[in-house]
């Protein structure tokens, strides 16, 4: 059993670290990277809702990121809406899209679900690419100015970082509540024993659908922040690789955990943006890291690290052989 105290203290340390981060790093560049991680983390958290707690592996989660981003930019720069209206419509419409997509995708389960989400994602990508009068085609849409909510200057990287961090905080809180809520518990039940849940009076489809829509909503929030961050959106945001990367974040970090997707997001964003400056073949490294994670920490980085820590704690003489053997023992259980 994980000890709640150490999780809490670790989270607190993490929170403090996140808050003071802008004072520690040497360049605005890293603050921007942190903002990107936070946005990716929100998207990964929302996908984790489906993958981790619902057992629904989606390969089309970029849909919500992309659609919300396209809508918010289109509405504010082309259709003449204000920032707030644009944002609300974008999130509302994207959530509505999730309702439709959920309706279609939940007709199947397992691999069928995965394929429908992938196909729907590809269709959206195609629309974004082809409908160039509206989406700008491959050139994408740009020209979005970041809003000034409550007089905050979001053009300042540090302010923007805190802005995003607030959303990440709310997302984490919502996810934590969700996990322990009636709906969250029901969703986890439908993942493990759908038939049983049916017999216990749960409308499995409805519970999965509601969760799907909830995940879509948070995907839309991530998309909105993505649009504000990049001030630009192109079909790449809707592409299969974006969905796949998000799925990788979730699985690598640890499905069904709160911090897993955040760690996974950090890993992928850092590899892609920072490490690539030093290692030309960073994609190979990314691949190798995933393979290694799966082989040696199959439950993901966060639960895996917990396990290793526990193993370290449990062995009174921290000599290396003992650690290894306890890890091995854990694995074989």
């Amino acid at each position, binding site marked *: 059993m994980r000890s709640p105290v150490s999780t809490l203290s670790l989270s607190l340390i993490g929170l403090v670290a996140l808050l003071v981060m802008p004072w520690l790093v040497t360049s605005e560049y890293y603050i921007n990277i942190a903002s990107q991680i936070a946005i990716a983390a929100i998207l990964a958290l929302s996908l984790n809702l489906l993958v981790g707690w619902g057992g629904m592996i989606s390969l089309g989660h970029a849909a919500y990121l992309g659609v919300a981003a396209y809508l918010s930019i289109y509405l504010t720069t082309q259709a003449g809406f204000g920032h707030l209206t644009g944002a609300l419509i974008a999130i509302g419409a994207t959530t509505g899209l999730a309702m439709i997509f959920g309706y279609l995708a939940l007709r199947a389960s397992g691999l069928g679900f995965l394929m429908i989400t992938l196909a729907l994602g590809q269709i959206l990508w195609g629309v974004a690419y082809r409908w160039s009068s509206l989406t700008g085609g491959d050139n994408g849409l740009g020209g979005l100015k970041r809003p000034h909510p409550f007089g905050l200057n979001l053009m300042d990287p540090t302010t923007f970082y805190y802005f995003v961090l607030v959303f990440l905080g709310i997302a984490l809180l*919502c996810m934590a*509540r969700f996990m*322990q809520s009636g709906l*969250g*518990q*029901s969703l986890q*039940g439908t993942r493990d024993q759908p*038939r049983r849940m049916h*017999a216990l*009076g749960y409308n499995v489809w409805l519970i999965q659908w509601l969760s799907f829509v909830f995940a879509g909503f948070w995907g839309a929030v991530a998309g909105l922040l993505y649009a504000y961050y990049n001030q630009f959106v192109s079909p790449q945001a809707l592409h299969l690789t974006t969905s796949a990367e998000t799925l990788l974040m979730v699985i690598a970090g640890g499905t069904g955990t709160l911090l897993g997707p955040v760690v996974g997001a950090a890993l992928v964003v850092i590899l892609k943006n920072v490490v690539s400056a030093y290692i030309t073949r960073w994609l190979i490294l990314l691949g190798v890291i995933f393979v290694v994670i799966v082989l040696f920490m199959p439950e993901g980085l966060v639960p895996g690290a917990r396990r290793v820590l526990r193993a370290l704690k449990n062995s009174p003489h921290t000599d290396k052989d003992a650690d290894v053997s306890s890890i091995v023992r854990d694995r074989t259980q």
Partner: protein
Amino acid sequence: MTISALEVTGLYRYFGGLPAVRDVTMRIPAGERRLLLGPNGAGKTTFFNLIAGDYPPSQGEIRIFGQNVTRKSANQRTHLGMARTYQIITLFPKNTVLHNVVISLVGLRECRFNPWSDLRRQTALWDEARATLVLVGLEHLADQTVMETSYGERRRLEIAMALAQKPKLLLLDEPLAGLSADERQDVQRLLQSIPRDVTIVMIEHDMDVALAFADVITVMQHGQVVVEGSRADVVADPKTREVYLGQ
């Protein structure tokens, strides 16, 4: 005229052209204890699944407390006061015993759609679950995970999860299967303690226990009802012997 707890008319179910249940008609008055007998493959569990709503019948009609539920899904039927246990135990093994009962309780409550309120803080729910565990004599295991419990204890938990929903119609699929003699007695006692107004339909192979328990017995074979009647009638009926000995 009293309303039947369960009324089945002309029920059929085919699997790829093969009938698993054929023309079953059955009427179970409220409060009755009904036993379903029959050799393996007689269609008893399929019949159960049809009543529970796991899959739709190919033909026929099912009514629960007078309401036609033929086209209703399993969860809707549960909300009409039906509960069931499974032949092969399907619990949530990583959760605690108490948690399992809570999941069962939440199934009938609105909070199953609530994405915000913390289930752990709804003490009424947990108290009620604990009370159910007391009823089945599992309160001492409340905080253990299901994985840590014995087979017999899980059987009882199965029943507890069904009882927690305070059903008016309870479907028990071989509640005694695979239990030791002691455990059997525990479960038997538990079954006997269920209030009389609960209608129980039970599949069971253990004749002694089952016969002692049931008011009316239905014997099925090849998906059909062969004999139906009181204990004495059924035991005396030559067709019963044929089913059990003559195959």
